[in-house]
């Protein structure tokens, strides 16, 4: 006798117990600590903070540990926590021109005021697996020097002085900045919301879209005007005291792409901008973001819009990996009610098809 399926509750509990066991791995091997994740898997933590939209290294490290290294799952954990936090206010815009720079490169000029600073980078390493790193490797102490007091003005500001690049639109400082986590998104979206969407967007998705613009799907001929990574001060304007109070500093990566623009009848030819910003050291992300930001400005700059990366609704509706993974993975949920209604319809259509064919065959046989 068939009995309807029961006991899902216990199955779920047991599955979660098994998950916790698997997450721990071999119990004879020491557990990874949050400090280890934060310190030694730092770029992973940076990505989780960026796409999770929450600057908290410890929570991001916890999320990575809890997610067994699944980055999108970790981003999801951080997002779900972030959604419950109260909003106390919006900080003053950070000034990346005054960043305490740890790495700063420009591909558009051989040298720039403040210099090219390679900093910690994979660039120019030879990608040979290093067996020394497997265990017990003690790296040499890095070279050190006095921190330079020289200003490191943004390369785009240098170009801007000669009017060679479009001026960066200055937002009205009294106008509130859009927040798509608090207000539902509608199209067309303003650039603040677009940038927020891209900053939270999946690195892989933006990378592919950015790459597609380089291969001709919405080409905008980019140069990496500048990529800088370092610390900036964050300040909040406090109503009670009447001035901006420093909250602390955060690590940011900023990428300013410099792109071609032919000019129009009303505007002289000049370079245009694509912008990328992310928490921590996230160069691939900010470069991709800057390419896509520029591609999305096609309409505003009077360019022909046709490529996927130029399509605001397409890009913004599919960039969020927490949304994407949820809907793709929801296919794991039971769908038997709609499947069976579809099955019923299909059987009916096939029966009608068979009957119709039979009738034709009979008729042909009779003729």
């Amino acid at each position: 006798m068939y009995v309807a399926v029961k006991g899902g509750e216990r199955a779920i509990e047991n599955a979660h117990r098994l998950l916790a066991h698997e997450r721990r791995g071999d119990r004879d091997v020491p557990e990874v600590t949050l400090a280890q994740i934060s310190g030694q898997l730092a770029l992973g933590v940076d990505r989780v903070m960026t796409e999770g939209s929450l600057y908290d290294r410890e929570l991001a490290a916890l999320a990575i540990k809890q997610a067994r290294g699944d980055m999108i799952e970790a981003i999801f954990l951080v997002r779900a926590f972030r959604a419950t936090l109260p909003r106390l206010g919006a900080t003053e815009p950070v000034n990346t021109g005054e960043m305490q720079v740890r790495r700063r490169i420009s591909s558009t000029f051989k040298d720039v005021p403040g210099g090219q600073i390679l900093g910690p980078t994979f660039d120019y390493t030879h990608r040979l697996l290093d067996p020394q790193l497997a265990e017990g490797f003690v790296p040499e102490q890095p070279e050190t020097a006095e921190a330079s007091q020289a200003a490191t003005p943004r390369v785009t500001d240098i170009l801007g002085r000669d009017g060679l690049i479009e001026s960066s639109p200055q937002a009205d400082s009294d106008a509130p900045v859009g927040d798509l986590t608090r207000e539902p998104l509608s199209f067309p979206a303003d650039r603040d919301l677009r940038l927020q969407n891209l900053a939270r967007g999946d690195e892989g998705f933006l990378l592919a879209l950015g790459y597609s613009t380089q291969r001709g799907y919405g080409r905008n001929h980019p140069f990496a005007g500048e990529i800088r990574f370092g610390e900036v001060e964050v300040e909040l304007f406090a109503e009670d005291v009447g001035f901006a109070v420093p909250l602390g500093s955060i690590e940011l990566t900023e990428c300013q792409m410099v792109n071609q623009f032919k000019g129009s009848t009303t505007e002289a030819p000049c370079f245009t901008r694509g912008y990328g910003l992310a928490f921590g050291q996230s160069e691939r992300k900010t470069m991709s973001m800057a390419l896509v930001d520029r591609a999305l400005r096609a309409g505003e700059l009077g360019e022909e819009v046709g490529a996927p990366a130029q399509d605001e609704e397409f890009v913004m509706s599919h960039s969020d990996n927490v949304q994407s993974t949820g809907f793709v993975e929801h296919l794991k949920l039971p769908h038997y009610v709609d499947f069976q209604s579809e099955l019923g319809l299909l059987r009916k259509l096939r029966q009608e098809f068979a009957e119709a064919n039979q009738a034709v065959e009979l008729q042909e046989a009779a003729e």
Partner: protein
Amino acid sequence: MNAPTYNFAYLDEQTKRMIRRAILKAIAIPGYQVPFASREMPMPYGWGTGGVQVTAAILGPDDVLKVIDQGSDDTTNAISIRKFFGKTAGVATTTSTTDATVIQTRHRIPEASLHAGQVLVYQVPIPEPLRFLEPRETETRRMHALAEYGLMHVKLYEDIARFGHIATAYAYPVKVNARYVMDPSPTPKFDNPKMDNCAALQLFGAGREKRIYAIPPYTTVVSLDFEDHPFTRYRFNAPCALCGADDSYLDEIVTDDKGGRMFVCSDTDFCEQRQAAGHHGTESAAPHKEKAHV
């Protein structure tokens, strides 16, 4: 580390207020999709976050909650959501359709008719009935504003031209209060008539797509059709093997790998109530055929 603490029914009161405003607007304009600032919930998008947010916003301490998925109280996701509210709101839960004040559902409408004062909360994956005809939100919103539904009728007509009848078995589009074309969520079209003139309030939440819509009690809901091809609903041509019901929507259960099948009620509460009342079915393999159900 900031140890997380959570409000009654998980969401903070500000968020609940925002959702309640969207719900009120949705009730005021039956069938219209109201954008709302959907939050990231602790379950994935696509797993009922819209329904969960609506439920969280309307739930009070005295409510009695029922959660079903595919008509069943015992499917894994229904259990997970019921436990979530049991834990975060401490509300009473039930499997009884009649006893519940709030019923959250995925893919089914209960067989037992709902009564005044109840709220049925649907989980909705794609709220836009026109989405697969027109992928752009900017376009579909304009089409709704102008009540420009010709495209949908052409689609239904093309079905008839190609297959002889409308080839939509679930998420069958309806017109609400003679104005908005609405997606009833992926319920089988067997359930569509239950939405019409229903005594309960019906709320629809789409979390990922950030939309809420509603059918107020006693509102006209018409399944789209043509005069010469009237809307027809279907069920498997068999009584339930467990309770003998011949008017309920049935699940097809594959019993072996030799073509063995049986059919049982998809609504587990309905089936259990009938069995408790002494009804029995016979475990005869029914033909895999649907018949029109009126």
